[in-house]
């Protein structure tokens, strides 16, 4: 094996990109090194080209930034498909004339909690993405955070979809055979498929958060302080600064909403209110640091 082949093998092993992108880069680098070696020797050509690790970091970071920009959009599209399926299924459920019972109510409640977590995670991803949208070089930890939040969003949406699917399939099984029960089953299949596809698309597009763009390319396009693109981050900053107030406010709104939508008497809605409040508190404790809602790790990182 000559030096150029060895360099290309080293570079190939370090590139975390699609096979198409990797093939293009390797072809271009081979062309360059062959040209350089034809006027000197292979050792000089490879030496002047720079370390494979540094070059791979550049490409990985760029690909990671592109993937990061896409992730919240993929999560949003997947959520819209799920939402349309839920609305359609709810309409057919009422047409099917089957009244909900405990099993469907529990499934529906779990689905609602999943949607709430998905929404909060998406807001975290979207607000961070918006704040760093125009930066020339997205830092690795920021790419990692946006991807993580997008994954949690689609993951929670997948759990919600599965819970809703169970509820709608139970209703379809009880309903008289017909177009409404068939539509319920179709919606019950579409929901998890859409959210799993979204999750997989994000999961397979790495943020390459351990790779950074070279300082040569950093220096322009930063978001101006006070930009409208930072509105979401400023709002989340309030949550980070006052976590107890944020949780108590959310608990009040979520508890009131659960009581209002329980479709039963105030006394009978109490278990749903308690469960909703518990879900909010547990989710904030468990997911708060992961979504950078509690930990100070991402503060001031838009600069």
């Amino acid at each position, binding site marked *: 094996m000559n030096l150029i082949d060895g360099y290309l093998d080293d570079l190939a092993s370090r590139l975390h990109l699609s096979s198409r992108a990797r093939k293009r*880069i390797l072809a271009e680098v081979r*062309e360059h090194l062959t040209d350089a070696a034809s006027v000197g020797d292979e050792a000089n050509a490879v030496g002047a080209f720079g370390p494979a690790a540094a070059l791979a970091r550049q490409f990985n970071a760029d690909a990671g930034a592109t993937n990061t920009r896409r992730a919240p959009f993929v999560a949003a599209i997947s959520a819209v498909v799920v939402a349309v399926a839920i609305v359609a299924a709810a309409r057919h459920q009422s047409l099917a004339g089957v009244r909900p019972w405990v099993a469907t109510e529990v499934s529906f409640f779990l689905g609602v909690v999943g949607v709430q977590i998905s929404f909060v995670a998406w807001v975290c991803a979207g607000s961070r993405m918006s704040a760093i949208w125009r930066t020339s070089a997205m830092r690795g930890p920021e790419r990692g955070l946006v991807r993580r939040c997008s994954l949690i969003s689609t993951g929670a949406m997948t759990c919600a979809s599965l819970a809703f699917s169970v509820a709608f399939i139970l209703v379809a099984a009880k309903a008289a055979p017909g177009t409404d029960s068939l539509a319920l089953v179709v919606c019950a299949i579409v929901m998890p498929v859409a959210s799993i596809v979204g999750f997989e698309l994000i999961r397979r597009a790495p943020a390459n958060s351990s790779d950074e763009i070279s300082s040569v*390319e950093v220096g322009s396009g930063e978001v101006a302080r006070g930009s409208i693109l930072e509105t979401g981050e400023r709002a989340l900053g309030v949550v980070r600064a006052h976590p107890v107030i944020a949780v108590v406010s959310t608990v009040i709104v979520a508890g009131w909403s659960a009581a209002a939508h329980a479709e039963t008497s105030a006394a009978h809605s109490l278990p749903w209110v308690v469960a909703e409040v518990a879900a909010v508190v547990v989710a904030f404790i468990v997911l708060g640091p992961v979504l950078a809602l509690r930990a100070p790790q991402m503060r001031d990182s838009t600069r």
Partner: protein
Amino acid sequence: MKGHLGALLLAVLESGPAHGYAIIESLRNSSHGAFDLPEGTIYPALHRLEATGLVTSRREVIDGRERRVYRLSAGGRRSLAESRTSWEAFASAVTSVLWASPA
């Protein structure tokens, strides 16, 4: 150099389409060797310019070998003009401060 590699590459491509090796040669000659970058550095920058629509590329046969050749796009010309304007303003301001007569 920080943050200006893209503009330098656009300036090199203004004189005509070129492949990666020719671009780095041209950059080196134009700067009289002042920009001693690892040659590989230009490829991520070229790909970034292509992703933002400032350059286009396609494979062409040159001297009997297939190469990827980069071209300046209309957006790239506009961006280059903007870079020149902002650089002139910056350089002029720095020059006027550095050569200002003591009061």
